[in-house]
């Protein structure tokens, strides 16, 4: 898994992704397809733009009173016999889940796709505690068998071919299968059906949680979300604290745009609204329901520079349109959340130092903000993040030196005037045909993958007097 190894610098991870022909092809096909599906869905839905504004407003309104809504959510869940837990750190969240597993004597846990549980590295912890975690989303199941990480928020295994999946099933499940998606899916259905029926613990994330009613909302296409919340005797939902929405009416606003943004569907196949444990008289459903509310860096961003990233619905639309993601794919980013929003979320979870390279893995073209259903201004926050990284002196010294000089020169007219002849002199050995293709010493990185335009013989500023 060298491509996700964080000890390898980002530019090497990105470089190896760029050299992987199969990955390049898969990424182009997948992201292009998602972009088309999304566009068609919104073209057919004239209210879409207004609902996006409304959804954005609801997210902001919720954050402005988040303490109230979270408290209401807690009360609602407890009133229905559910239990709520609070986790400031990933360690704490893992501990909560492990304690529940131990107390209920759980041996096997079935999971429906949950970015929050990826974020806290729950599977490793469960395994270490002797509880077998089974990912049940087909894409997640495949990469779990392959011991890899998701490469896309909503299509975790887009980097794998059907041939690779067939080989994987042959090796891990000891079954010879044709490299046919239909057949591979059938095998997975049979394998996983047994697990659903046997597992003691069902673990999910939450796409939303409705404060007013204490309802956890899961959106899936495969139906694993329903299985996991219906069959095991204990259900644990792990959720970032920003996922709360005030009411069912608000929820419907999000449901109208989420699937359209993610896969171009009007609605995903299953939207499952779960309110606590099985009710009296109900034959099925868990005896226990637990909600784990996760902070992990989110709460301090309510008043922080990344506040807007707390609106995110995890739809993946910004990944598909990002020229950087489309080239390097999810693994090269190296963390749980890839793509443009992933850079911001990583900074939120791991601190700005963790993204000193990643913060530059964006052309700031703005495609992400256009595609985002809640219109998150990702480029603005990336610029802000770059500034923070610069000011915190986390950036490389060469970069800081270059920007520091630039700042001085641009701020002073006389320095600016003097700098031009000096710069022309300095660039002379490197400039060819008006371009600088490589610079020496510690600055070589700058021109490794891009050219700099050389300074013109006469700048506009110098031409101005003669033009008049």
């Amino acid at each position, binding site marked *: 898994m060298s491509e996700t190894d964080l000890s390898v610098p980002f530019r090497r991870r990105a470089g190896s992704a760029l050299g992987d022909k199969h990955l390049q092809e898969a990424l182009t096909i997948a992201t292009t397809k998602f972009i088309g599906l999304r566009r068609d869905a919104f073209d057919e839905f004239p209210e879409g733009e207004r609902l996006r504004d409304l959804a954005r407003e609801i997210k902001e309104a919720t954050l402005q009173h988040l303490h109230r809504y979270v408290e209401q959510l807690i009360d609602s869940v407890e009133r229905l016999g559910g239990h*709520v837990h609070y986790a400031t750190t990933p360690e704490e969240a893992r501990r909560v889940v492990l304690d529940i597993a131990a107390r209920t004597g759980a041996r096997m846990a079935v999971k429906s796709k949950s970015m929050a549980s990826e974020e806290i590295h729950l599977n490793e912890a469960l395994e270490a505690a002797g509880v077998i975690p089974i990912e049940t989303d087909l894409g997640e199941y495949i990469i779990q068998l392959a011991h890899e990480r998701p490469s896309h928020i909503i299509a975790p295994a887009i980097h794998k071919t059907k041939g690779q999946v067939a080989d994987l099933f042959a090796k891990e499940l000891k079954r010879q299968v044709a490299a046919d998606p239909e057949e591979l899916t059938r095998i997975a259905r049979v394998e996983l059906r047994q697990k659903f029926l046997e597992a003691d613990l069902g673990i999910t994330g939450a796409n939303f949680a409705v404060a007013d009613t204490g309802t956890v909302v899961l959106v899936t296409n495969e139906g694993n979300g329903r299985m996991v919340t219906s069959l095991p005797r204990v259900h644990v939902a792990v959720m970032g604290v920003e996922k709360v929405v005030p*009411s069912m009416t608000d929820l419907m606003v999000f449901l109208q745009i989420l699937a359209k943004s993610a896969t171009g569907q009007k609605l995903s196949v299953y939207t499952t609204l*779960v309110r606590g444990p099985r009710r009296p008289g109900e034959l099925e459903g868990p005896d226990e329901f637990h909600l784990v509310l996760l902070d992990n860096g989110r709460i301090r961003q309510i008043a922080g520079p990344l506040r807007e990233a707390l609106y995110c619905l995890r739809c993946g639309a910004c990944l598909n349109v990002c020229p950087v993601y489309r080239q390097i794919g999810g693994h090269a980013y190296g963390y749980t959340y890839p793509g443009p929003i992933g850079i911001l979320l990583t900074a939120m979870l791991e601190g700005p130092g963790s993204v000193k390279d990643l913060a530059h893995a964006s052309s700031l073209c703005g495609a992400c903000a256009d595609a985002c259903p809640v219109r998150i201004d990702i480029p603005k926050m990336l610029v802000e993040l770059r500034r923070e990284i610069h000011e915190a002196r986390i950036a490389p010294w060469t970069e800081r030196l270059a920007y520091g000089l630039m700042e001085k020169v641009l701020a002073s007219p006389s320095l600016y005037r003097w700098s031009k002849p000096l710069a022309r002199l300095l660039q002379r050995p490197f400039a060819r045909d008006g371009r600088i293709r490589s610079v020496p010493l510690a600055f070589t990185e700058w021109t490794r993958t891009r050219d700099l335009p050389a300074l013109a013989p006469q700048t506009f500023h110098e031409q101005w007097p003669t033009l008049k």
Partner: protein
Amino acid sequence: MTTRTEFLSRIRTEVGKTPGLFSARTAPRPSDPRAVSETIKRELAERWPQALERFQLEFERVAGVFHRAASIAVVPQVVAGIARENEVRRLVAWDAPELGADLLDALTARGLEPFAMPPGDLADATERAELRRRVADAELGLTGVDLAIAETGTLVLRSGAGRPRSTSLLPACHIAVFDRTALIETLGQAGVFLELWNRGELEGRIGAVTSFITGPSRTADIELTLTRGVHGPKEVHAIFVDQAIRG
């Protein structure tokens, strides 16, 4: 371990530090969802044929199979047809009052092996396990419908006593029966019903789960190839009954 008080007070402190990015409000909720839901139904009493047409269109777009029956008495015949086509016979169904009619004898007469879910919970663990095995082995699941949303071709099913979650989930073929009283037009309207169902009076009487089902289970996780029936049903049939099911 972080306590509720610590957790909430930390959020409160951070919220207190900022006025927010812009002035914002949540979506306006119906103050009297019962009255609004009744208005929706009243309006649908006239517009339902258009709504049904749209439902059929959208339902078929998501690979649902649409049927129409003159009355509930015709439903066993339609179900038997589906069973014959799939060459299967084991069927589990919601309890008769939840379904709106007792169809077991008629289904048996047509060569099926139907089994009705109990009206409530089973106290005995072995009995419960046996029942689950029966549902897992069944090939057809027959349920009612609480809402059919025209805009998206979606079936909304509430869980509860006599209407377990697995009937529409474990069998490879789900058959849902509804009439015009379940029809609504938009997701926005569905929100009104969710507001209603989750309020005091009904809260204690309904089950813990509400499922929105929009076509058969699907995935595109292997090379983006659309494949149906990953975990949930491979087929979803909706039978619209012209004559009101409950007389």
